[in-house]
């Protein structure tokens, strides 16, 4: 019995490492080598993205991963936390590494911190009903892991890549090439960095404390796991209260004094199963009727949880009003003197519009790392305070390639729907705006035309103007809002052309293009 049960831990270790590795590769894959279908399959089990996806895309089966997780939790406990959650596995690894530097961590039973866990869960849900995903975004373990991988892991990898390619190029090998990249703003980096520090601290000194006090996914799954069919069980008859099991329990949920395991906090790591020298601990099927009431003071603590929830809620109201300000940077320069105030940020094609996007995006930044032109960047306050870290199209970083639909293909939460190329060509994510007072042609009477050059639909085109010059003219009906004109515009600090985001994405008219007339044929003589 002991033998077979210890296999569970091995399976857990292997599965979790495979999932962590694959998820990490997906986030670090800056060459877009991994096929999109693989990414979708891999991220199918990620609870929060799948949940949001399911309810937004009218209960699609393809987004039913969270149901599988719920069923698994009901059968076996919080399988997600130890098998599929990349953050959970990362914590296990950190905790394992930290053991090399300090004395082996001996875990001890601690009481459930119900106030915190139900508080965080309740707040997250209330915020969701208020129409903001800010807490989901900041607390979801998958998205947090994604942000760490995308904003810290990927730049490190790129530094490595660029160093390596530099060496190889000296040997005339061009298989690896350098990658130009911009580090996100430090204010944005602060989030994944401080979260990573927090996780390192938790994992080093408190095991899976994050999962049992903060993580809303852990708390939801814990509610179900309380009643799971398979449970970790201790036998009073063979237990010698030696504490071996509880010392391996990173969730601190084994109470040797009462011989009980708090299944709501057990992360199903199965470390305890092989720890008991007496065979006093097991993992077996149990009926509903056997559920032991573990927390006699539960009602009281629930009331407390509600109290704290309301306190938070009242505190949250002024936060919402803080979200109106927008932020822009710039220093004075000779041209481009008229400041630009965008009313709406530009959301990625397939995201339907501001509301759809901001209510479904969990800021995992997979689209940010997958975007080949790097136009997708984490936002700070472009979406307001509650949309912090959600990606937007940043024309300073790049522009949306006319023939690319990768962001929709990788998005695990349906915040960005997958578009076909034909659909993408018709989708208008924003409208071009021309500020002639900033334009080089207008201010300096010199030809430029960078905007029209980059425009894939010729919504921006050059028309004759004064003394033999050409000046841009815009046609908003055929503009798709890709931002190529804005990116290419050379004026500083303010551009002469920019894209104003469409709060709801519209349909762009197809650019009319007549066949050109033949002006030279190889049958004619050379004109010189």
């Amino acid at each position, binding site marked *: 019995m002991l033998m077979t049960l210890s296999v569970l831990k091995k399976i857990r270790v292997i599965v979790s490492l495979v999932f962590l590795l694959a998820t990490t590769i997906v986030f670090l894959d800056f060459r877009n080598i991994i096929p999109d279908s693989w990414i979708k399959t891999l991220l199918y089990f990620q609870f929060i993205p799948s949940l949001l996806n399911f309810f937004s895309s009218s209960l699609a089966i393809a987004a039913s991963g969270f149901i599988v997780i719920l069923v698994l939790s009901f059968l076996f406990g919080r399988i997600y936390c130890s098998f599929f959650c990349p953050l959970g596995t990362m914590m296990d690894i950190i905790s394992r590494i930290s053991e090399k530097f300090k004395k082996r961590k001996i875990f001890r039973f601690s009481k459930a911190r119900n106030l915190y866990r139900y508080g965080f869960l309740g707040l997250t849900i209330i915020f969701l009903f208020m129409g903001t995903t800010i807490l989901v975004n900041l607390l979801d373990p998958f998205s947090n892991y994604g942000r760490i991988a995308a904003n810290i892991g990927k730049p490190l990898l790129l530094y490595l890549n*660029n160093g390596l390619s530099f060496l190889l190029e000296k040997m005339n090998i061009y298989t690896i090439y350098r990658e130009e990249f911009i580090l996100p703003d430090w204010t944005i980096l602060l989030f994944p960095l401080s979260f990573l520090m927090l996780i390192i601290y938790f994992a080093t000194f408190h095991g899976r404390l994050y999962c049992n006090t903060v993580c809303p996914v852990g708390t939801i799954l814990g509610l179900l796991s309380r009643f799971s069919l398979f449970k970790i069980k201790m036998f009073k008859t063979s237990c010698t209260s030696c504490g071996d099991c509880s010392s391996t329990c990173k969730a601190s949920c084994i109470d040797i004094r009462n011989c009980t395991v708090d299944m709501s906090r057990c992360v199903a790591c199965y470390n305890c199963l092989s720890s008991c020298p007496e065979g006093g601990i097991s993992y077996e099927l149990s009926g509903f009727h056997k559920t032991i009431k573990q927390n006699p003071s539960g009602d009281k603590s629930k009331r407390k949880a509600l109290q704290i929830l309301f306190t938070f809620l009242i505190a949250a109201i002024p936060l919402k009003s803080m979200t109106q300000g927008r932020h822009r940077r710039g220093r004075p320069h000779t041209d481009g003197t008229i400041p630009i105030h965008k009313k709406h940020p530009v959301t990625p094609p397939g995201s339907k519009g501001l509301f759809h996007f901001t209510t479904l995006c969990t800021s995992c930044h997979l689209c940010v790392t997958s975007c*080949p032109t790097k136009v997708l960047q984490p936002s700070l306050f472009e979406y307001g305070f509650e949309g912090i870290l959600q990606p937007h199209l940043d024309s300073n970083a790049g522009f949306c390639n006319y023939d690319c639909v990768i962001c929709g293909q990788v998005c695990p939460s349906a915040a960005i729907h997958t578009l076909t190329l034909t659909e993408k060509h018709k989708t208008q994510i924003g409208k071009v705006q021309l500020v002639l007072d900033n334009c080089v042609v207008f201010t*300096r009477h010199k*030809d430029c035309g960078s905007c029209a050059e*980059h425009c894939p639909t010729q919504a921006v085109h050059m028309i004759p103007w004064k003394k*033999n010059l050409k000046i841009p003219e815009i046609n908003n009906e055929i503009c798709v809002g890709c931002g190529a004109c804005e990116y290419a515009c050379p004026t500083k600090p303010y551009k002469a052309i920019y894209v104003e985001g469409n709060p709801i994405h519209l349909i762009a008219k197809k*650019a009319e293009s007549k*066949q050109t007339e033949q002006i030279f044929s190889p049958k004619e003589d050379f004109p010189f």
Partner: protein
Amino acid sequence: MKRRDFIKTGLAAGVAAGIGFNLLPFEKVFSATAPLDAYDLVAIKGGKADAMFDRGIKVLGGMGRFVKKGQTVVVKPNIGWSVEPDRAATTNPLLIKRIIEHCYQAGAKTVYVFDNTCDNWIKCYQESGIEKAAKEANAKVAPANSESYFQEVTIPGAKVLKSAKVHELILESDVFINVPVLKNHGSADMTVSMKNLMGVVWDRRFWHRNDLHQCIADYCLYSKKPHLNIVDAYRVMLKNGPRGVSTNDVQLFQTQIISSDIVAADVAAVALFGKKAEDVKHISLASQMKIGEKDLSKLKIARINM
């Protein structure tokens, strides 16, 4: 000017080859360089892009006149946009492949191909078909997506563009072959050989902000000039350039122009559009700055029908 340059290049190449192959008598090496009565410009029409080049380079005395054994060559096509070859926004991949083959036949050590693209460079290299074609011909397809590949150079005599960051392969290679595609261009009127050189520098925004036409002409003063300009006018974009909107913008010209004189090559190319040198500001500026000859009647031109 042009002819003197030509002989200088030939001499330099000859000396380089002479050092590498000192078994050959000096006279023989020298006589292999430009004969003085060679054509200044070759115009070919009516064939496939690669076949036209075969004929054209033969008339000019073969690639061996420009590429010597053991030399490194950089071929600079226009790969600016991530569109397919039939949109004529990028240089014909067949032509690029054939040019590389001629270079290797002439004994080139390595042939490099690159462009600093406007659209995402990986997509450009792929969709233009140029990466594949160049690799088939054994060329090294090099990136130009990072500022670290570019080095600051000064341009003596320039009016506006007094310095620029130029791709290291242009600086390091022995031979520079410029292979533009002839196109309509929204801002620069036309894009041919001179405008194509914008793809060897890093900061193009400076050009756009500070008198585009003058900067295009200024850059042609830089000492690393193309030894050969091969204008691809097989498929030609007549409107909505330089990116184009659809194949409706494109007509078949089945033409090619080859010259070492960058101004002459561009004048001949825009003549296919019915334009004169004066109609395209950067061409007339370059002619005023004595960068090349705009009066084609002063040149010895080979006209080939296939």
